[in-house]
């Protein structure tokens, strides 16, 4: 069964259809939130659960203007921002200038995740949506509710920071 059929069934309060949608999208939503929460698994999963609950409550209002996944990312991002405003996200200190060590694919991923923790929330979200989740710039801008130019500058700044942190030979 294709996703649009599942969405319309879920909009008619079909729990099984919504469960199937949850299974389809949970990994990416949790992955996005994991990046936003700087690797806090428990918090990311709590926020992801709130995201899907919110999606279930308001799925009847989903008009299909964007992909269902994009709509979920938007809810996830707004849940994260609400949480951050409540809890005043603990800021990391400035990056200490050490280049993370490690070789190979696993180390590269670990280094990347550590480096991500040094970016701002908007930079983390913009880079994750545009690269790992494959959204276009305009879709990502819509998801994060920011102008396209602002999104592009977040992507550029984030990339430059990552290059510096991960070690730029040039």
């Amino acid at each position: 069964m294709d996703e649009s059929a599942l969405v319309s069934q879920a909009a008619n309060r079909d729990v099984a259809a919504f469960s199937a949608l949850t299974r389809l999208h949970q990994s990416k939503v949790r992955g996005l939130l994991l990046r936003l929460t700087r690797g806090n698994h428990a918090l990311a999963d709590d926020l992801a659960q709130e995201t899907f609950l919110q999606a279930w409550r308001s799925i009847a209002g989903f008009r299909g203007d964007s992909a269902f996944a994009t709509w979920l990312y938007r809810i996830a991002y707004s849940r994260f921002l609400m949480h951050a405003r409540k809890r005043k996200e603990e800021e990391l200190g400035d990056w200490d200038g050490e280049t993370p060590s490690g070789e190979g694919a696993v180390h590269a991923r670990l280094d990347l995740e550590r480096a991500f923790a040094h970016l701002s929330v908007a930079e983390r979200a913009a880079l994750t949506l545009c690269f790992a989740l494959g959204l276009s710039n305009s879709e990502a801008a819509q998801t994060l509710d920011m102008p396209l130019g602002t999104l592009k500058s977040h992507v550029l700044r984030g990339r430059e920071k990552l290059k510096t942190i991960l070690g730029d030979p040039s």
Partner: protein
Amino acid sequence: MNDAQLDALLSRPLPELDTTHFSVAVMEAIARDAARPARVLGWIMVGVLAVVVALACVFGATLAGRDAMAGAPIAIPLALSTLVALLCLSVLQAARE
């Protein structure tokens, strides 16, 4: 790290996370959310019942006068309290279902 290497690293898909526990937790949260209006209604009904029975007790005691209660000062309030408790339990059970 050059631009191409960074792009390749960033474009890797996010790691797949275990779906079973999370999906179950979401479905449980949805079920709890769906039961919430019934639970709230159940508590409201319990409150209304308690007030009605308390008013009935006061009304009954006023009509009968203190002398009529002298023989069994505890029996009547005890019976009424038990009745209220039973009603509350049945209302809450219905709300849970």
